[in-house]
């Protein structure tokens, strides 16, 4: 579960051009992370769904004002937290099924970590776009298409050894970019 950062280009498309498709894709990609985050505070599936969806929709309803939000993910996480805490104040304690908890027992859901990871992914994606064409292709086939080296080799019409070299190269470059 990694948050996808909303690029500033897409942010202005949502805020100014009112592009619903981009908003929808952002919503779908990230909903589950936000929902889990809300659940971590509320321990209630239905309330978590309400809070998460309501806050993400807020991004849409902000309209042009969204442009003033410097970090959308941080803003959403903070809003979810506030909303959850407000709810807890008025709510009676509830009984939670064990089984429900297991599903959400993900201790990686602290906002700081979520932010760092999502920024790392955004950086990696930028680095991927700068890889040499063949290296990028081999890396994406293995990472995104879940191909084995052999399958990737067949699809690119090169030897598995070469794929291995491309992957090693990609890993090294991406890691160094991330570190820098």
């Amino acid at each position, binding site marked *: *579960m*990694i948050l996808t950062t909303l690029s500033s280009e897409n942010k202005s498309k949502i805020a100014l051009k009112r592009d*619903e498709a981009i908003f*929808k894709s952002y*919503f*779908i*990609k990230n*909903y*589950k992370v936000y*929902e889990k985050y809300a659940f971590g505070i509320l321990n209630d599936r239905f309330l978590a*769904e309400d809070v*998460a*969806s*309501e806050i993400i*929709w807020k991004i849409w*309803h902000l309209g042009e004002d969204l442009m003033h939000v410097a970090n959308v993910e941080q803003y959403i996480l903070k809003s979810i937290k506030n909303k959850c805490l407000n709810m807890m104040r008025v709510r009676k304690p509830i009984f939670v099924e064990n089984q429900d908890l297991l599903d959400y027992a993900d201790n990686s859901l602290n906002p700081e970590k979520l932010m*760092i*990871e999502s920024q*790392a*992914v955004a950086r*990696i994606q930028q680095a991927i776009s700068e890889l040499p064409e063949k290296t990028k292709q081999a890396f994406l086939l*293995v*990472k995104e298409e*879940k191909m*084995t*080296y052999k399958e990737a080799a067949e699809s690119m019409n090169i030897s598995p050894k070469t794929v*291995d070299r491309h*992957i*090693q190269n990609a*890993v*090294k470059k*991406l*890691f160094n970019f*991330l*570190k820098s």
Partner: protein
Amino acid sequence: MSNTEEHYLFLINKLLHGDITKAESEELMRLSEGDIVRLSFIKYLTSSVDTSDLLEAEIVYEKTKPNDLIQEETIIPAPSKIINSSRLYKIASIAAAIVIVAFSSIYYFYYVSESANDDWQYISTNRGERKFLTLKDGTEVWLNNESELKVLKGYGEEHRRMELKGEGYFSVAKNPKLPLLIHTKDTEVKVIGTVFNLSAYPESGATTTSLIEGKVSLKIEGGNHTKEIIMNPGDQVRISKANIEKNAADLSLKELILKEAVSYTKADVKDDKVSDMLWVDNKLVFNNLTLSEIAVKLGRWYNKEIIIQKDELRDLSFSGTFQEKECTQVLDILKKTNLKINYQLKNDTIYIH
């Protein structure tokens, strides 16, 4: 680069290669402990998108979507699902064997291959389903709901013969040497190169041919003699077993046709398109049809069982063009005509009363 980092990258490569051992992956975690960059990198590489999560998110999205957005959407007409034929053509020329391109859940593109062993090849559609196919000679066929097209082996080379049950819209590639012959239950349509719609559902008892472009000759097999009718663009010929008369375009023809229980009308042309063939554009058209005829059409289109419970409703007639996603939306519109129609939905069956 430090030694541990080199080892870290070595293990990362093994992880991607898929041959990392348990001990090695433990070591990898140990090497990354407390290092947010290394941890993030591993998390990125091992993360995968869970489609069930995406589906759940989409459901929540649609559920929580504000009403003003939903209204905006319904004003914009649904985009036509049929794709540009010249593009299809290009794909067809690349395809070696059977290529099936699904560009929506209901439209398919077929390329009839030579490899099939049967003498006849079958392409059929179920209720609620429509298909688009391009035959070897470039002829394009849209097959409406619950229809079946049989193509004889050797199509496009030695002959162009096929049989149709149901409804199809044909755009025939020109080939003067090989006329296209389509056999239905009681007619044979001979075509050289043209666009037309042919409806021959077995239960309707009639075969309707609407011609849009070019020339078509119809051969009617009526008992011990056959008649041939030449059709011109805009003509519609309905051949039925019952004696049905419609506005005959030509008086002399009318007499001849009546004997054969054939009715010959000018087709209803709208924007250069015959309303009979609007289904190709994802539109459902009723042209002065009775409710019982509409029930059959709707049932086929949406794959629903429709039962009319009051007999006096059967003969009410309606005209209209619909592009609704749900069968009930069409019925809601019919309800608004102030005729006393009501319906009830139980499972997949709709009762009209």
